[in-house]
């Protein structure tokens, strides 16, 4: 039996399949492994950050800082690899610790000072962006042989598609994210928080560690996305990835997660990312459409999904009312 909580996920999946079928019927080349591989590679950083955003939104929060954190990570890596002889792996560890700590600090502020996540992460957004500018205002190229090594790792599928390391990393992040969200106590606590913080507290859910954990995950994954983005572009630029937090939120909502928290799936976000990537690919294939059509279609999709969620909420509440109504003696 399909439960109503699964319905948005089903709709997302159906949208994806339908959209892909539509694209393929028009441009059969879109079925090639090349397109699939590029879809994964091009959206790797966005996918990774969207996993973190899924946790945040499931808990009823929002994280506006991730786009800036990605830019900061890129600039930080570029500058530190240019100015010191530190090994990239050590730099990765350092920047992940930094961004995770940054996220945790925002989570702690949200919980202990009882501040709205919107404001706290807005401040975080400015802070991280500012820190990136302070490090460098120019685009700093990354030229390190270890980067070349990492960029050369790929699996060449029949058909010529190259499945690169960063795409694989995104898939791993989604798998790990899904496991944590759906199959660990921490994940259950995240859902509990999204279902109602007050109730969750009364049920003994550790709100402090859960909130801190959620934003630490989001910050850490933004750091990882930053690393992936630096591998993707071989540079660090403080003006990069402006507005990526909004793309991530869009992917999460198109993926069927309720913006007010409590309902949704990590897997949905994966398909949300693919749908958004697919739209972009279609426009590239078409060649005549302005690339801004991507935004318009994503806007329309978002709107449709919000309506769907409203409709579902409405349907479940009226059904409940009818159920309780019939229980009364008449």
């Amino acid at each position: 039996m399909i439960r109503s909580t699964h319905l948005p996920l089903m709709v997302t999946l159906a949208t994806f399949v339908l959209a892909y079928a539509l694209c393929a019927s028009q441009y059969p080349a879109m079925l090639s492994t090349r397109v699939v591989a590029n879809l994964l590679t091009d959206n790797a950083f966005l996918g990774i950050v969207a996993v973190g955003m899924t946790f945040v939104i499931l808990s009823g929060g929002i994280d506006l800082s991730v786009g800036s954190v990605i830019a900061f990570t890129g600039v930080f890596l570029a500058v530190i690899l240019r100015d010191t002889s530190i090994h990239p792996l050590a730099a990765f560890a350092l920047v992940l610790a930094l961004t995770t700590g940054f996220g945790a600090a925002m989570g702690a502020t949200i919980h202990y000072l009882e501040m709205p996540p919107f404001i706290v992460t807005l401040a975080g957004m400015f802070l991280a962006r500012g820190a990136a500018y302070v490090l460098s205002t120019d685009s700093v190229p990354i030229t390190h042989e270890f980067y070349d090594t990492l960029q050369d790792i790929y699996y060449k599928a029949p058909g010529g598609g190259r499945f690169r390391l960063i795409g694989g990393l995104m898939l791993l992040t989604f798998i790990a994210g899904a496991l944590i969200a759906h199959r660990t106590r921490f994940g259950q606590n995240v859902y509990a928080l999204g279902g109602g913080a007050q109730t969750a507290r009364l049920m003994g859910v550790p709100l402090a560690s859960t909130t801190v954990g959620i934003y630490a995950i989001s910050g850490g994954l933004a750091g990882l996305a930053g690393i992936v983005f630096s591998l993707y572009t071989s540079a660090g630029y403080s003006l990069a990835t402006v507005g990526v937090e909004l793309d991530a939120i869009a992917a999460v909502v198109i993926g069927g997660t309720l913006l007010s928290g409590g309902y949704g799936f990590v897997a949905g976000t994966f398909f949300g990312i693919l749908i958004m990537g697919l739209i972009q690919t279609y426009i590239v294939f078409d060649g005549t459409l302005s690339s801004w059509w991507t935004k318009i279609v994503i806007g329309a999709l978002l709107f449709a999904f919000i309506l769907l969620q409203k409709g579902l909420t409405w349907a479940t509440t009226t059904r409940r009312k009818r159920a309780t109504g019939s229980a009364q003696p008449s």
Partner: protein
Amino acid sequence: MRHRRKMQDQPPLLHASGISKFFPGAVALDEVELKLYPGEVHALLGENGAGKSTLIKCLTGAYRRDGGVIRLAGEEVDPKSTADAQGLGIGTVYQEVNLLPNLTVAENLYMGRQPTRLGLVNRRAMNRAAAEVLEGYGLHIDPGEPLTSFSVAVQQVVAIARAVALSGKVLILDEPTASLDRDEVDLLFGVIRQLKERGLSIVFITHFLDQVFEISDRATVLRNGRVVGERLLAEVSQHDIITLMLGRQLEARVAEKKGGKPGELLLQVNDLAKRGMIEPFSLNLHRGEVVGLAGLLGSGRTETANLLFGAVQADQGKLLLEGRETRITNPREAIAHRFALCPEDRKTDGIVGDLSVRDNIILALQARQGWMRPIPRSKVNEIAEHYVKALDIRLASLDMPIRLLSGGNQQKALLARWLATEPEFLILDEPTRGIDVGAHAEIIALIERLRENGMALLVASSELEELVAYSTRVVVLRDRRQVRELTGDEITADNIVHAIADEQKGAA
């Protein structure tokens, strides 16, 4: 008797003594003592604002107490949070089911202690275990279903099952029966008796004295933050308990009809109806008159109130106000005509929880004036203070959020909101729902007073005794139809019941 003596001989399972709690400007608890013996149901009684909720919150760590000692099985304990209290063995179930609506029954039952395998939650084992536990309580349901697909009573039992599984020593039930019908109460009481057999101490908080005597062994009565008595219920009567709670003899409410003829005709309702909600309804209402609306749950009481107030639009019939035909299509128009409605569910339709008491009181008056013409601050204070005094609303300050007030005081603040608009026609929907005996008496006295001042009132209530006490006429509804009107000496609880029952026979 033997059972009870055995209970007495044992040391108490939970012994709280000298519990004190101060709020700014108020002593909420003053050296309160509570003894719970194993295997007993202990009722915690008191008027609204007597300190029941505060005591519970101190015991469960939701509040930090300012003084006193809690001993559990002889050992001193100091719960710092509800989770802490759970770990010690003290579990709580609240009136509004405190489970998560977005999760399944099993997820709710096992939140925080899910069975895991290799660090991952084992859902299958969890659902199986949940099904077993719930079967022990007589519930045969699929725990993989979302919690919200079940009735409130089932959710309540799930909450109890969770509390017992987590705590297993002391179970506190805070008004668990408030929103249940009789069958559901029986289901719940069955569960309580079963837990009593297992040796748990159960604290039972309720406004229903009949239920107290039905299920409880002992009662502690609080008044104004102090313990005024602990009694074995087998040895006392309801009257004794009420006397303890109120601190005075409750004057027998005689249905003595106060003098004064009804004034001029204010409102004529001719066959007002809304398809699917209420059949044609007619009524003539005079100033200085209280018309009671009686009927079973679902008989159309609330619908009638909403129809007259314009919250629901009539699709036929006429309404004459002082002889002139008047169309009322929404509550704003009703308010402009000096109508007022105190809704049944004050939590969702009435109070604005986070706004101050002052703002809540002034809300309707300000809305009528329009937001462009703000009422001066000094005037607001004057009005709020006037009604707080007139209605004896007990609060620490006008600035406190209204959600912190007890139910009875919230209800009085809501009344104040509408009285501030100086209505000519006041509709009250279940004005005494969920508040205790003392506040009851005050609200009834207030209705009398308003009537004497020449207001026209329509009061929907399921409390027949109350209707009899204040109504000058009673309209009986049945299946969304007006079936009888009782006047003068006809107004007795018996006659109302007969009016409902006769019609039922006629229909059958």
